[in-house]
């Protein structure tokens, strides 16, 4: 078997198998800390605000938003793409690194996958709420009906979206869950609490860790990983096709699929970095999420940021090289200069420039700076979607229909609400699910610990 050379130490402190189990399960057994309650109520508050916004949207209509006849998509789609992008981290982590047999993924992939599932839920909310007639949303599924039957338009990128995102959600949730089964079994067998034994026993599906079971488990993981790898690429490519297959200047470009996929992984890794820094601090997981892990992510971010910078400049170059006045206008007079300058340059700074500081090892070692940079990446990626969605729509072909867009409290409310859902989801995850894949860490223990 091909064995990856190990760069740094991935599990510190000379752990035994039992120690790992206890370390990881400890937060689940501990009393719920106060900060958890505070954060959870914060998240609940955000969800309530979002709930109000959703209620308003459904009762009043999309008119409660800031979108108009010309900029018909706004915050909802920006946030949708953003969340989907963040969601990509988990799958990218697990699957690409699994397929590439990168050992260092093991202590991070569980959290990343959890993030994926919650982020996809948040993302999925937006296209739904964004519909003018939410109550007819089921039209989008090609189900047998009494209208002829009347099917859907299989040419529509939105239909592809529905197929892709539901597949993605299903696949990543399953992948996540299968990975958790041995860990649930561990909890079941080690916990003293009867309730926990029952509950985790229920969710462990009767796993005992027999040889045949592990063989099938490994094979299934690899197969699902193999299937999901193209899916990760496909999902964000399809999301990008919402734009790329349309004819709006600034959207109508073939660079979008790779650009979006890379961007998604970029934002996802950024979010993983943000979360993991918090987690290792709060749960004292420094021995599992080591400096080497953060270093590896930071290096990858630097590399992806270069790809992003290339994509940005390619777009500009193609606008000029393509010789189309509409494209040129969108890029030069509406993004680089013009009404949306600020958003454009925020995007460039956060995504292309700031990650370049990771070239320096010293900075990579400084967790605070890495943390701040990761937050900038999240912001920058949000602005990237803002720039793409709004600028192209606001000034398109006919100057007569040019209009600007600014969000209303309702739109912002829904965004805040999804942030709340994300936070709440992650908190639940912290509380009830082993944050680190116990069996996988054990698996790499021999080869990587001191």
């Amino acid at each position, binding site marked *: 078997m091909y064995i990856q050379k190990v760069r740094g130490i991935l599990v510190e402190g000379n752990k035994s198998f039992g120690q790992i189990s206890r370390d990881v399960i400890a937060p689940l057994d501990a009393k719920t800390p106060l900060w958890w309650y505070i954060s959870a109520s914060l998240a609940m508050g955000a969800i309530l605000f979002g709930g109000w916004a959703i209620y308003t949207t459904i009762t*009043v*209509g*999309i*008119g409660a938003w*800031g*979108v*108009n*006849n*010309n900029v*018909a*998509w706004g915050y909802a789609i920006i946030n949708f793409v953003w969340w989907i992008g963040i969601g990509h981290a988990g799958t990218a982590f697990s699957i690409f690194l699994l397929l590439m047999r990168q050992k260092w993924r093991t202590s991070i992939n569980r959290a990343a996958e959890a993030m994926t599932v919650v982020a996809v839920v948040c993302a999925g909310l937006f*296209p739904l709420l*964004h*519909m*003018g*007639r*939410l*109550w*007819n*949303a089921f*039209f*989008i599924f090609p189900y047998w009906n009494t209208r002829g039957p*009347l*099917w*859907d*338009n299989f*040419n*529509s*990128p*939105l*239909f592809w*979206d*529905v197929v892709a995102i539901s597949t993605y959600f299903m696949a990543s949730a399953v992948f996540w869950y299968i990975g958790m089964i041995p860990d649930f079994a561990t909890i079941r067998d080690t916990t003293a609490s009867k309730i926990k034994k029952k509950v985790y026993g229920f969710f462990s599906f009767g796993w005992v860790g027999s040889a045949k079971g592990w063989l099938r488990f490994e094979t299934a993981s690899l197969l699902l990983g193999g299937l999901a790898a193209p899916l990760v690429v496909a999902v964000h490519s399809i999301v990008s096709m*919402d734009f790329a*297959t*349309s*004819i*709006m200047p600034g959207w109508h470009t073939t660079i979008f699929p790779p650009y979006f996929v890379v961007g998604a992984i970029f934002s996802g890794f950024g979010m993983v970095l943000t979360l993991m820094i918090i987690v290792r601090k709060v749960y004292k997981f420094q021995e599992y999420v080591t400096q080497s892990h953060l270093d590896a992510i930071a290096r990858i971010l630097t590399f992806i940021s270069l790809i992003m910078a290339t994509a940005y400049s390619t777009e500009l170059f193609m606008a000029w090289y393509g010789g*189309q*006045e*509409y494209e040129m*206008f969108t890029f030069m007079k509406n993004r680089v200069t013009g009404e949306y300058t600020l958003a454009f340059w925020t995007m460039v700074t956060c995504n292309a420039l700031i990650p370049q500081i990771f070239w320096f090892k010293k900075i990579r070692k400084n967790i605070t700076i890495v943390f701040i940079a990761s937050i900038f990446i999240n912001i920058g990626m949000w602005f990237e979607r803002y720039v793409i969605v709004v600028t192209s*729509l606001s*000034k*398109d*072909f*006919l*100057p*007569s*229909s*040019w*209009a*600007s867009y600014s969000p209303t409290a309702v739109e912002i409310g829904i965004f805040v609400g999804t942030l709340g859902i994300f936070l709440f989801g992650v908190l639940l995850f912290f509380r009830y699910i082993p944050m680190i894949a116990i069996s996988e860490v054990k698996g790499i223990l021999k080869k990587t610990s001191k």
Partner: protein
Amino acid sequence: MKKYWRSIDEYKTLQKDLTLAGDGGQEFSIDGMSDEEVKGNTSRRDFLKMFGFSIGFATIATSCETPVRKAIPYLIQPEEITPGIANHYASTFYDGHDYCSILIKTREGRPIKIEGNELSPISKGATNARVQASVLNLYDNARLKAPHKDGSPSDWAHVDAEIIPALDKASADGKEIVLLTSTIISPSTKQIIKDFKDKFGNVTWLTYDAISMQAMRKANEKNFGEAFIPTYDLTNAKLVVGFNADFLGTWMSPTEYTKQYSAARKLLNGESAMLRHVQYESQYTITGGAADDRVPIKPSDEVVVLLNIYNYLAAKLSQPVYPVADTSIEFASYAEELLENQGQSIVFSGTNNLNIQLICNAINHLLGNYNQTIDLSKHYNLKQGDDQAIDQLISKIDAGNVGAVIHYNVNPAYDAPNAEAYKTALAKVELSISMADAMNETAALCKYVCPDNNYLESWNDAEPQTGVYSTQQPTIRNLFDTRQAQESFLRWMGNAQEYHDYMEAFWQANIFPLQSTFTGFIFFWNQCIHDGVFAVDAEKKDFQFTSGELKAPAFIDSGDFELVLYEKIGLGDGKYANNPWLQELPDPVTTATWDNYVCVPAKYAEENGLKLEDVVRVNDLFELPIVVQPGLAYGTVAIALGYGRTSAGKVADGLGQNAFPLLSTANGLKSLMGSKVSIERVAGKTYPLALTQEHHTMEGRDLIRETTLSKFLADPASGNEQHAKDAEVNANLYDEPKFTGFHWGMAINLNSCTGCGNCVISCQAENNVAVIGKEQVKNRRIMHWIRIDRYYSEDHENPEVLHQPLMCQHCDNAPCENVCPVAATPHSSEGLNQMAYNRCIGTRYCMNNCPYRVRRFNWFEFANNKKFDFNSSMSTDLGKLVLNPDVVVRSRGVVEKCSLCVQRIQEKKLLAKTEGRQLQDGEIKTACQQSCPGDAIVFGDLLDPNSKISEIQRNPRMYHLLEHVHTLPSTSYLTKIRNKKS
């Protein structure tokens, strides 16, 4: 519903046979609407919506399946009504301001749409926006529902019982009875007034126009000895020079002129010449936009330029010249052109100023245009108002010898420059009566309000031009307890005759003898009512021109702004301010809706750092926001009339400011031009304006392709070179779509489009388009299916204006169709881009992917929504009667757009099928096409090689908008050609 509605009113003759019909004819349930919807209760649509939320419960509660709908047949069905089939009745629109011969489309007896009457020698099938929108006035809740006394409802018996003795008393006391009316062009009404005078003796009849053209009459009185307004014939002219006359928009008879003007400028059939038009004007109007050359002038410059032109011509033609100041404004080249076109040119001015009108007359005389392009023996009967009528009336009242004032179709308390004085005076009159059909500022002050019928409920006649008679017939029984003004006069005179009988008798006596085709009166009468018009040749009269002294008084520059007051295409003089369709019609030049504002010249705004929506104080009178208007002459500001109504109804009240007090009243003439105003920025204050377009130039894109006449003659495809280039490079991955049977297409001749906005209203009426209100217009969510894009050319000081009507282009490679996930907008087998509202889930992807931005989203529930109660055609029981039953009212959350009037296509196809024949070219007319006064829109079958539309497709001027996107639109445009000399 029963409250308002009974049955169609019929021809009197039929009525006598079917006495039962009048009483017993019950309404047919408005089809397309369930009872509940009509009543405004939970509609079926709401039901479905609720059902969506509770699918699970719904199945359990199946007992609430579908509300019971009733079908109520006529008790006795009127012979001419077939439920489900529209009837058209010829009639007349005249409101004291505009005249138009029309056809009224009724469904199950309720008027739902106005079309032009093609038989009319004046309007020739054209209408304007106010005429189109007038059908909604019928169903306006602000209309008076009963006679009022002292502001509270009464009934006719009481009101009559008090008015008649009061009139008698005034007459007996030797006091004057003053009849203050708008210009009356109805011969029979004039007869009634004559009878009224005879009956009461001391009756003074004053005619009053809010916007006057008396100077023209006075000038002609001086020059020809008779006060009249001649008729102009643009079709015979080669050059028109207009001075502040918005003759394509609001001046005198715009429908007629637009028809003539565009006919003379079509350039479709290989003509080598076209009418040339030079416009000197202060405010930017659509007439200036259509002109080949437009020269911005201050109002004070007008007389100077005119006299200079006169002097130039007179010098060339060895006639006496008059002293005048020099001017830097270009005139010599145009004067030279006028010389070249003697007898084939027209010079006119819209300014109500005697000097100016005299100079115009003199120029036309010099050029020999009289009896060539200007018909002296055929007169316009519109605008007979006396500008001093109100002053006279006030002084009479103050003198104490006025016993009664009767207002008919006038509202001086709102639109007189000295309205305040009039209000005070009116309070002194013992008997004040208003015949307003809806409460207005004057009626609110009158002791009695005796509401007139809506014109769609009334009999009437009109003689808009010498020898052109026009009839008006009711198409619906009175909705409210109102009485036609003529009938009120008859009653007060003690005459029990119905006005219909009176009018018929009048026609028998006076008009029947004018013709010889019919021998029996009843046949003649029926024919007239059927056609709506009857014309006899005007008697040729020989007028001698007596020249007078021409002078251009020196202008005293006080440093203030010169003010231009103007009428908006939609609102006119403000009579219909309560009509939401008109309020939401964007001004063709500024694209503003729902407000008036101060237009300031671009240069001035630049100098003073003013920008859109900054509030300025005008003359310490009121505050208004500004609109920076390129092309407005420097030193001039412009304000629209018709706003600032205070008691017109829910829609109009409180919108904008009333600018009538700013009318200039020099020399006994009320003029829109020439007042002086000072404007002062109110620091820091802004006021939001709802513009439908915020970017004003084409950014160098070839959206509207234009060329000049000379280039066009050299190469018909000039300006349209890109069309061939694009055709060369455009490629298709798939085969081009093929159609069998029909392939509907539309073409718009940009040379004929003046941007008047008539199509917008027509479409709105035909397709039940919602009104969304100022706030939402400002949010750029307007619902109009057809919009008129307006672009300024690059010149900041005097840009050219270009208009482009834009509706769904029905692309064969439609980008919008591909992206709808639920298949709500596929392509039809007849080339239509279909929109199935009931399938739409509102992802708005199609809107994003439409390069033309013509798709509209229902951001809110616009029907039955209290927040949109100004959307009266959908939110009030009464207003709903105007809805077209063949077109569904769209609910919240669905996308809608132009359907190329598919209901009309289907209707005519069905007609052809039932008659077992092929469809004729031109048989189907879309609403916009039918109403277009410029005949700019052509619709037809692209598969038929002989159709008009196919012919246009082969025209080298034809291009598609955004051709390089290769959407293959079925709608095409024809290049704009300006007849430029240079």
